[in-house]
């Protein structure tokens, strides 16, 4: 018995030591916990994973190969399986139309942070990178660091389509050298979602909602709603501690940008940001708003909150429509989409948020062919139509927005899910969609906001000016 126990212990100790050896170089040995397992379950920071946070559960790797054996062989990575399914469909179309330029692609889906880390490592070491890869907006600065030494510019390949694409969206995926490295999926225009069915129960009509122009109007309507409901736990909206969407919207309305762009200096102490945060603090005090459970509404707890009708309105990018399809299908017919309120009349009322820029790497076996395929898949009208139908994104090809057979097609899920046509709203705000740059300092700002500043302001009631001054200091340390 004694011997057995000792031998069990010795072997356990040995395996623990072994595992600790696999861990990070500098971490002294300890629990086997420090080894690479962490990377297997990645979601990235809350806001960054925004576009497709469905990846909150680490999916197992999915690998599929599409295309003829004699085609040029390529690798493609994504962090969302639906994206790969989309590319696979587009690849079949490409191979049909280009018999002399056949491609065979092996698609691999990795968890969010795992994929981005693998990509950056392989770009840095110069081997092992795929031919094509999805890059989430928040990770763009990291992947773009090596500009044309790492990535292949798409400028030439996208010429046939560039005229119809929304310029502000293409700009978001340009490198510091002005070349186009990423192809976008969507505009990510921020709009206001309203639960009309619930609002109507308390005497608020569609007309009341349409009459909301400024944030003051919005606040007044919120007060009216909350008073009419008169129930604890029911709010007009929820504000985020784990995401910066509200602040982006405020900046876009005033034409500000806290990153300062490529050459400027980061400054988070902006009036627009202060106004938004002060307004949110007052909403919390007046019980018009609550803090989103788990930090923001693009998470399971957020969907549940919407399904429970604890909140009845919120601003979110157009791609949030797909969350209704995937997580809240029972809400069909209840929701209405409008443009967002503004601080002062005449301001921009929307901002492009989130997104996936797909890149072609310099390590590709045939970067020119890869770029041509990529632009065909993500920018051609055929591809754009499929993006809308399959993925439910607000596409960047503006020529389709006014096309009745496309924008008002009642066989489309989203066109009938909401009380109005999403593209009607989009057409209406076409020229009012601002852009906040994503540059090298962006992840630092985002992290500071989502871990510290927003929690201080919205959870602890810290004065907005103080919290932002502290944030500014922390961000400057990194610049």
């Amino acid at each position, binding site marked *: 018995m004694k011997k057995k126990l000792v031998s069990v212990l010795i072997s356990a100790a040995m395996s623990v030591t072994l595992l600790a050896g696999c861990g990070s170089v*500098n971490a002294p*040995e300890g629990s086997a916990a*420090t080894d690479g397992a962490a990377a297997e379950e990645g979601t990235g920071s809350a806001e960054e994973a925004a576009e497709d946070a469905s990846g909150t559960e680490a999916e197992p790797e999915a690998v599929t190969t599409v295309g003829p054996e004699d085609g040029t062989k390529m690798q493609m990575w994504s962090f969302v399986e639906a994206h790969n399914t989309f590319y696979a469909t587009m690849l079949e179309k490409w191979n049909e139309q280009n018999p002399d330029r056949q491609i065979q692609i092996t698609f691999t889906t990795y968890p969010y942070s795992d994929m981005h*880390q693998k990509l950056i490592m392989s770009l840095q070491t110069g081997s092992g990178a795929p031919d094509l890869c999805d890059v989430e907006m928040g990770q763009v600065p990291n992947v773009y660091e090596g500009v044309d030494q790492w990535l292949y510019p798409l400028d030439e390949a996208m010429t046939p389509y560039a005229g119809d694409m929304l310029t502000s969206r293409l700009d978001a995926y340009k490198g510091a050298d002005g070349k186009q490295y990423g192809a976008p999926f969507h505009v990510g225009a921020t709009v206001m979602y309203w639960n009309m069915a619930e609002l109507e129960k308390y005497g608020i009509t569609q007309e009341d909602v349409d009459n909301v122009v400024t944030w003051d109007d919005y606040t007044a309507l919120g007060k009216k709603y909350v008073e009419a409901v008169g129930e604890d736990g029911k709010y007009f909206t929820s504000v985020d501690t784990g995401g910066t969407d509200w602040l982006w919207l405020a900046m876009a309305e005033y034409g500000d940008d806290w990153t300062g762009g490529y050459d400027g200096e980061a400054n988070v102490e902006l009036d627009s940001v202060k106004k938004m945060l002060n307004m949110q603090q007052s909403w919390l005090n007046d019980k018009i708003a609550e803090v989103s459970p*788990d930090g923001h509404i693009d998470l399971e*707890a957020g969907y549940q909150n919407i399904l429970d009708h604890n909140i009845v309105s919120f601003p979110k990018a157009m791609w949030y429509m797909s969350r209704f399809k995937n997580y809240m299908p029972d809400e069909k017919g209840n929701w209405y989409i409008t443009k967002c309120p503004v601080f002062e009349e005449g301001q921009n009322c929307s901002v492009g948020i989130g997104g996936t820029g797909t890149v072609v790497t310099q390590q590709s076996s045939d970067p020119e062919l890869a770029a041509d395929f990529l632009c065909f898949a993500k920018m051609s009208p055929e591809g754009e139509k499929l993006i809308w139908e399959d993925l439910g994104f607000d596409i960047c090809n503006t020529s389709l927005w006014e096309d009745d057979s496309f924008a008002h097609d009642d066989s489309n899920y989203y066109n009938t899910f909401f009380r109005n046509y999403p593209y009607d709203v989009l057409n209406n705000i076409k020229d009012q969609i601002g852009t906040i740059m994503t540059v090298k300092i962006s992840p*630092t700002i985002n992290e500071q906001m989502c871990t510290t500043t927003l929690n201080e302001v919205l959870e602890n009631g810290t004065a907005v000016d103080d919290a932002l001054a502290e944030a500014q200091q922390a961000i400057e340390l990194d610049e």
Partner: protein
Amino acid sequence: MKVKKFLCSEKTAPYVFALPFLISFVIFWIYPLISAIIMSFQDIGAVSTKFIGAKNYLKLLKDGVFHIAVLNSFEYMLLTCVLLIPFPLLYAVLMDSRLVKAKGVWKAVLYIPALTSVVISGTLFRLMFSEYKTGQLNILMTMLNMPTIKWLKVKWTSEIALLLLCCWRWTGVNMLYFLSGLKSIDKSLYESADIDGATTWQKFKFITIPLIKPTSIYVLTITIYAGLSMFLESFMLWSGNSSPNNIGLTIVGYLYKRGIEKNDMGYACAVGVVLMVIGLTINFIQLFFNGTLKKEED
């Protein structure tokens, strides 16, 4: 023939046997250690790398987030030492005594958590400690007519979650260490103590504690290391490396954040070197006061 002679000679044989360990030690420990120290003085960019002197270390001095991470790791390390040494020892003594029936079952029950992956247990704890009213602990709070708590947003409640996860996982392991230490104590010592009329407490204090000292030192040393290098528990509990106001950020978490998430390897190496220095200092002090480093008395 020569080879055989070489291998069988008394002088070389020990080195030959130790060689596999030495090689792996040099390749996987010494080499990365040295290159990490070198890298901590560099700015490692995407395309070029250059030496920047002690800039990374100077930045660490001013970096408030790093200070929070160090404090968090320290606090966690101290609290785990307080919880993960007395209690497992107590359980081990109980297991070794005649008071407990069905020892195998209890041992297995206490040890099983160590076999589950932190990824899974962390996720389960996250769901249990959810701030939403459907989280198990908030259901409990509601049943007790108390207001629900945002467990993972407040420092002290999140500390409870982390420590609970840690104790649940490691108590069984430490208990087994102590148990093996107890098994090696000669039973006749207890018998003679009985004859002399010693109480249970006296036996524990004057026989068990001194004789189990080597095991205690080992357990203390690994607990300190494990506490300082904790990362995955916090990573899983907050489903990522970002926690509100950095309440769950540890030194290794910060290293990961800088090195992997922000791709700033030079700075991350500086964090790692500081962690190593802290870990070594604490353990040297601890081993010095335990007398482990003194020459064995003969």
